[in-house]
């Protein structure tokens, strides 16, 4: 069965657009109609921008007519509401930024615009990207398109849900401890967290600056490579972006796995792993072996300390980054406060939600006088041990494969009152960020309840090409990349 236009991939649509069989205005209208149809059930968007999308689509059609524009020209995208978009409200999922309209674009947005891409709206996220279920958003919780009683994952939940449900062709999210890979896994789409420094963070609202990275969510692996091509590369506006060459990541997708060594980190397959997740991932591993890869077992012995280290380091950085929300320069202010201190305190207390407050308190405590060595320094030393684990593993193999999450998506509300339980679900994604490595998630099967199961690939710094090659081989072998969720309309 032919997929509806809104369910197709960037590379399929790019062909139709460039051969003039389809205009971007037609395509964008189809996607906007799809949003009308399914948004009541899914709830992925915070701000839709229909007029802007249609005018961008008309401009893209002119670029296409002249043979101009990039590979994403005319393609409707959704953007996580953590990225500054000039003239379009950017809330970060928080009440404290409800009125904020950025006067500039994030570098990744500038790059998409240069290609002629279309933005249909800003999508939901956990407030300040803090969460694993997208239940911490001040503007509502998106639902999992495969089963709307289940979470879509977080924090880039709106990105994953909008891609899976055909409310856009692809999306950009951000990943601080798994926030692209985990919702991608739960919604059955492809997600990548590039190497720290690969993609400019200029215009990304900061959560934890040493961990944050922007990444694509797409319907297949080739689209992921196309998005990375568009957004990656050095940017003088981000002093942590790296002057590393940017290959064409689509060129090497199908070059095969012969001679490649893939490591299985045994710590990722412990007792608590869901049996269906284990079976789907092991099936994926055997397909990679059949495709020519050599599979070896490796050990990352400090994996179990990742969450503990992360929940010091990330909140510590967040407590500092979020100090800027003081009711003075932008965002919400309690106008009734009569003193400066009262204005700071009441504006922040009314503007931030409970999870953000919890992490600010935790981070402030960890950095406060007398506790710095016990917490922040200790966590940063454990971070070194985690980095060394990976360095050792990558002397023996080219990439590591594992599950993304220990279970498929849980039911809405199940972990909402137990922050620690939600934190523990990030055990397999967090160490990647502590080490600044690239990693991706792609669908590798479904549970008997029909929920998607994700397959994670991690690699050495700047080896996104290797990850994409492995992902492409697995996607070809599995043959499930055309499956779409059964959303009743």
């Amino acid at each position, binding site marked *: 069965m032919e997929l509806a236009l809104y369910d197709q991939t960037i590379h399929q649509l790019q062909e139709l657009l460039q051969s003039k069989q389809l205009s971007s205005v037609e395509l964008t209208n189809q996607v906007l109609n799809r949003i009308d149809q399914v948004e009541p059930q899914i709830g992925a968007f915070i701000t839709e921008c229909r007029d802007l999308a249609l005018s961008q689509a008309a401009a893209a059609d002119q670029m296409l007519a002249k043979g101009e524009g990039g590979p994403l020209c005319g393609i409707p995208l959704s953007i996580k509401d953590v990225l500054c978009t000039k003239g379009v409200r950017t809330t970060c999922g928080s009440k404290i930024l409800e009125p904020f309209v950025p006067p500039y674009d994030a570098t990744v947005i500038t790059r998409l615009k240069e290609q002629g891409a279309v933005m249909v709206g800003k999508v939901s996220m956990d407030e300040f990207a803090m969460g694993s279920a997208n239940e911490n958003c001040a503007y509502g919780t998106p639902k999992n398109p495969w089963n709307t009683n289940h979470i879509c994952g977080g924090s880039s939940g709106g990105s994953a849900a909008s891609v899976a449900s055909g409310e856009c062709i692809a999306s950009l999210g951000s990943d601080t401890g798994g926030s692209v890979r985990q919702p991608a896994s739960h919604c059955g789409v492809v997600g990548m967290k590039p190497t720290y420094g690969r993609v400019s963070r200029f215009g990304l609202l900061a959560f934890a600056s040493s961990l944050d990275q922007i990444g694509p969510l797409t319907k297949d692996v080739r689209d992921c490579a196309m998005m990375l091509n568009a957004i990656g590369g050095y940017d003088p506006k981000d002093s942590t972006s790296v002057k590393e060459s940017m290959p064409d990541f689509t060129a090497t997708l199908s070059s095969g796995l012969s001679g490649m060594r893939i490591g299985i980190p045994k710590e990722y397959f412990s007792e608590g792993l869901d049996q269906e997740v284990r079976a789907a991932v092991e099936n994926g591993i055997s397909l990679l072996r059949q495709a020519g890869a050599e599979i070896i077992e490796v050990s990352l012995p400090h994996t179990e300390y990742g969450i503990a280290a992360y929940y010091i380091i990330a909140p510590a950085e967040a407590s500092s980054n979020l100090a800027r929300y003081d009711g003075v320069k932008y965002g919400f202010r309690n106008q009734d406060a009569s003193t400066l201190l009262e204005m700071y305190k009441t504006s*922040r207390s009314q503007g931030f939600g409970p999870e953000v407050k919890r992490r600010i308190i935790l981070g*402030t405590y960890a950095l406060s006088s007398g506790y710095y060595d016990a*917490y922040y320094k200790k966590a940063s030393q454990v971070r*070194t041990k985690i980095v060394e684990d990976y360095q050792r593993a990558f002397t023996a193999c080219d990439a590591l494969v594992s599950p993304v999450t220990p279970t498929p998506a849980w039911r809405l509300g199940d972990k909402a009152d137990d*922050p*620690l339980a939600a934190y523990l679900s990030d055990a397999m994604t967090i160490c990647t960020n502590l080490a600044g490595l690239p990693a991706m998630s792609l669908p590798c099967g479904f549970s008997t309840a029909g929920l998607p199961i994700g397959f994670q690939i991690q690699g050495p710094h700047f080896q996104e090409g290797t990850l994409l090659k492995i992902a492409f081989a697995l996607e070809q072998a599995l043959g499930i990349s055309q499956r779409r969720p059964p959303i009743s309309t």
Partner: protein
Amino acid sequence: MQITPEEITKVAHLARLDLNPAEVAHMTDQVGAILTYIDKLNELDTTGVTPTTHALAINNAFRDDVVIPSLPQSEAIKNGPKQNGEAFIVPKVIS
């Protein structure tokens, strides 16, 4: 207990947050549980281990000191919840 209600109140003040008594109690339990979990880090001997604060070995990123166009003042302050076109207005600081 890993953290007392008094410490939560003190840290909240440092972070410029107002918490009501119910929030303090809830926060004490939840932050306490998280800190108990984090104590796991003490299972590891990290004597002499150099802390990692940044995943890549990047040193200072220098550039030439040249003036480039930046946001005009009116754009830069237009998101201020209270401003007069030139400056942000805040409650009186010195009384």
